[in-house]
């Protein structure tokens, strides 16, 4: 399974066949701080992902100047 990460943009290969929350835990990502996008659709952390899926994990935290 390909996982696209942002800021900076990069891609990692992880195994699927498990809930997204487990993928996020492996990446040490808080589920409340990212959008998870699969095939152009938002998905919750409870969805299962397969080995052929491609995910984008997009951070939602913006920290620009006040």
């Amino acid at each position, binding site marked *: 399974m390909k996982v696209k990460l*942002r*800021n900076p943009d990069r891609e990692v290969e992880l195994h699927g066949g498990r809930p997204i929350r487990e993928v996020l835990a492996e990446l040490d990502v*808080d*589920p*409340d*701080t990212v*959008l998870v*996008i699969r095939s152009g*659709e*938002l*998905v*919750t*952390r*409870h*969805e299962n992902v397969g080995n052929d899926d491609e995910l984008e994990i*997009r*951070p*939602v*935290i*913006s*920290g*620009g*100047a*006040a």
Partner: protein
Amino acid sequence: MKCKRCSGSAVVELRRHNAAFCKVCFPEVFTEQVRKAIRRFDMFDPSDRILVAVSGGKDSLALWDVLLTTGYDATGLYLGLGIGGYSDRSHDAAVAFAEARGAELRVVDLAERYGYDIPTAGRKGSRSTCAVCGLTKRYVFNRAAAEGGFDVIATGHNLDDEAATLLGNTLRWKTDYIARQSPALPARDGMVRKVKPLHRLSELETAAYAFLRGIDYVVEECPLVAGNTQLRYKNAMNTIEATSPGTKAQFLFGYLDRGIPLFAGDDDVALVPCGSCGQPTIGRFCAFCRARAQILGEHLGSADRAGTDDREVARSLSDEVLPAEIYGGAET
């Protein structure tokens, strides 16, 4: 996971509400929260001309989108900060959004209009890049709104922004800043009314709304933001939120419900026109003009070099959380 409203397949989970929503219902829920904020703080009505501070990021474009779709008279203002390719892409996102919706976007180029860009300000000024950037944005938005005859400035500050700012100001007991951290600040003495209609919505919610509405916002972070104080406060609050969902909302909403009266009067200062630009300030020259003079190597006048003013400049420029003069931060 099922949508709380229609039992369809959920795409957004909001742990602090112990609820989830589908891609059709969530934008409706989001819009209802914005309407609630507008009503609760009497932010504006359909007859008002609203100037939306637009950065090309998720929050400001989500705000502009929801205001346009709910029938408000909302014009965008993009400020070109001169931060290389990041600013170019941000500008393009704002322009594309405006063109797709037939909305008016005004553009101010900082270097062209005021003679410096943000990277230069960070190098030549006495304090952090984020502090000077925040000061600059607040000044330009207020001035553009006043000169353009707008009734109100709307910024995309969300729940996470506001909770982090409140945390920072509380940690340092900046009671004057705490006193004015309201989602709606009235117009006074040259300051245009300023509102934050997204303050009830988290960053996750604004990002999800923008995505579901097909808004092509800039995902990348400002390259100059590393080490930003507000980011550290956000991370601290997210750590608490991870095990206690709803803490951020309780902190901010509790302040808005019960805390504001406790600090009333702490920001009771008189405003006078700046001796250089005429914009409202508490001293002879406004913080923006003093900072700009420092960056450009110019002098405003003898009072500008007096010890008191130097301390004021340092103080206003060093506050990354809620810097500057009378009004709170303005996201772009």
